[in-house]
């Protein structure tokens, strides 16, 4: 039996009718056609599907659609808008060459943003820990970690 679910995604209200066993990732990618959130494993092991649920990073493939009824979700599409400035994490990813194939990138950006939101000056160990659930097979993480450090710096400058 399909259920009616209301959710807020990137500040907009949506209503979807869905089978209750579909996941938030299914709803985002298939119903709302927000394909920036990636499906890498569908079982909570790669982090490619990371979104912010009420401000906290989660694997959207592990969350059933009915659980997000009335909740607020931010996907990569909500982090920046065309013609507006990028988020400092995004800028830093570009500058530091923290991207190769890009498939892990949306999830990485979300996890990094969530980290810097709760801990503006993370140590290298804290950065690595915050990204431990996001697999990247291309970069060896070196430039990703550098980018998160650089983003923290940028945000610090932005605050002062």
């Amino acid at each position, binding site marked *: 039996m399909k259920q009616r679910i209301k959710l807020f995604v990137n500040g907009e209200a949506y209503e979807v009718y869905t089978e209750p066993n579909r996941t938030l990732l299914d709803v985002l990618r298939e119903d709302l056609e927000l394909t920036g959130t*990636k499906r890498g494993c569908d079982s909570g092991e790669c982090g490619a599907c990371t979104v912010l649920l009420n401000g906290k990073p989660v694997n959207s493939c592990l969350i059933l659609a009915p659980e997000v009824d009335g909740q607020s979700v931010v996907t990569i599409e909500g982090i920046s808008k065309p013609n507006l400035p990028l988020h400092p994490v995004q800028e830093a990813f570009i500058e530091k060459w923290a991207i190769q194939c890009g498939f892990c990138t949306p999830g990485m950006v979300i996890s990094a943003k969530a980290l810097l939101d709760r801990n503006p000056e993370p140590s290298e160990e804290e950065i690595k820990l915050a990204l431990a659930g996001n697999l990247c097979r291309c970069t060896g993480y070196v430039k990703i970690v550098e980018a998160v450090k650089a983003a923290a710096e940028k945000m610090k400058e932005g605050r002062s």
Partner: protein
Amino acid sequence: MTVQISRESLIGKSLTRVDALEKVTGRAVYGDDIKMTGLLYGKILRSPKAHAKIKRIDVSKALALEGVKAVVTGKDAPFRGGEALRDQPFLAIDKVRFVGEPVAAVAAVDERIAEEAIKLIEVEYEDLPAVFDVMDALKPDAPIIHEELHTYEHIPIVQPVPGTNICAKFEFERGDLEKGFAEADVVIEDTFTFAPSHHGQIEPFMAIAQVDYNGRITVWVPNDAPSRLRKDLSDAMKIPQDRIRVISPPYMGGGFGGKGGLKVEMVCIALAMKTECRPVKIRLTREETFEATLTRHGAVCWVKMGAKKDGRIVACHSKLYYNTGAYAEKGPTVTLHGCESGVGPYDIPNIKVEGYCVYTNRPVAGALRGYGLPQSSWAHESLVDMLAHKLGLDPLEIRLKNALVEGSINPIRGDELFSVGLKECLEKAAKAIDWYKKRPPNRGVGIACEYKATKTPSGSTAFVRIEQDGSVEVVTSSVEIGQGVRTILTQIVAEELGASPNMIKVTVPDTDYTPFDASTTASRTTFHMGNAVREAARDAKKQLLELASKLYGISPERLDTWDGKVFPKEGGKEMSFREVITSHYRAGLSILGRGSYYPNIPGTLFSAHSVFYMYAAHAVEIEVDPETGVITILKYAAAHDVGRAINPKACEGQIEGGVLQGIGSTLYEEILFDDKGVMLNPNFRDYKMPTSMDMPKVIPIIVEAPHKEGPFGAKGIGEITLVPVSPAIANALFNAIGVRIKDLPLTAEKVYFAIKKQKGGN
């Protein structure tokens, strides 16, 4: 007086990636993001058996399910494909040869119905004896996996041995092996084993296929070689290439050699042939991506080396056995390349290398970053260390003593080598970790080096188009796998044409519009396609200057371009590309430059000595916990001779990524099977890949020994970055605690027991 126009070269500059903005904002489109009108979804029923006859298949119940539009089995698509040897059916025909082989497939209006429908298909099997171990498969009484081996078509370089499980066999011999060993003061030999591993691309496999009313096939697929895919399909289906169109999705989420050849395409096309022009999409789950796409070959490598007292290696004999699984895929040429680096990057006068590509009932093994070298290198680079130990020599010094240098003769193929930066790699990598420093107990250093060929000969064609608005398009079939090819080609074209990078875009491959390119593999693209686009840019520039010369009233030789403008060399008014074109062709026109590169080396595909060689040396410092066996990597220096770094950051990215991928398969990655051939860890939970927590301190070092034929001297880098990792770490393990492990991976458990044995044993 000549005016000096300041132009800073774009070559060697770390421009930011041209695709970074789309990727970092989540707007980059990958295969699974594509939807189409009328799209159907396919699911595959896979074999639960490693080796069995198919007695009966009944699809009637699946076909009757509402929403199901087509069901196919092997009989509906009686084709066999394969780049090197055409042995692989689109879906199993009469028998299955590995657990996970497609047996039937369903296309339905949604994925859930398709999923339900495949469960309704009844298949009756009759078990056949299976063989999984590569050495067992070579025994005279081993079950034969391909009874029809003698009937398969193959490229000339591949020579199967009918009546056995030998899919291909290669042999290289130079000098006089017996004499060499007789002259040696020390001879040692040993056997090393290599565990199968997986690419672990974060993007799972997918494809969309559509057959139009004329029967023409279009496939949208993240495949690393659209031109080759079209040929492979045409060869398999016995239809002309122009009946097939391959379109790359804008982006691919990692390949590492896995997303090439025929994978999901085969089943997807078989279904699309029965869906009355409706497109069919198949996306594999993570489990299917593990179980049924491709693995890196497990291997057994035996090496024997003989050396003089002073460390000079005078003879080397290797026998390499690659477990290629149920079908050939690229296994034969993986084996060939493994052989081509079968004695290491050393000037050894007497050699023999034998390579065997062997069928078993394992999933198909093929290309994975390094193409046969991670296995062969693991063996000879471990053995060189053992040799050094026996001779009382330093592992770095024995390598420097034997290393190939400019003008050396390639020990395998006998060609003269140039653009050889090996010694510099060895010296710089060693220095970066302070090689000679005295270290506390349980710490050690290891080094390994290698050289790698690229597939030769192979061709690339490109266009460079200057539009009437002055913008530039690079028309190419090179695939952006993540390596940064669009950025590199942009830099090369910008430099050659005198355009600014932001005027340039690089196409996404579509075989209807983008010209032939052999493949985006073998680290060949910067060199081959780089040369092709450079020539096309030169041609476009020539035409542009001819137009401009009419406007300026001076000869084209007196004009030049930079930053999207034409200017007289002696100074004067600048004109933008747009102004030049529109002033001349007032109603508009495009300028089309053409370029091709095909090395001037005779031979058929893969048969010739390499047009360039990449050289690398890795040095690592580790610490071993003798209580737990855990290896911690303290410092990892990887030096690579790339000819010329077009974009140093891109090269660093390849090194850092390749090293960590290599650390994974060295320390813990291993595909495990039960005794029936079922994969036990087909997911990221049980198949452990490195995370950010496992990232060591990596020091990428770029060495430049320019290649006379490479674009601006460039060669390649991607594949070799992973190759020296395993022996470098194993050598460091020996250096740290005196334990030599000869089978990968070097898990903590294995190290722990090795230490225990060493302590208790003698």
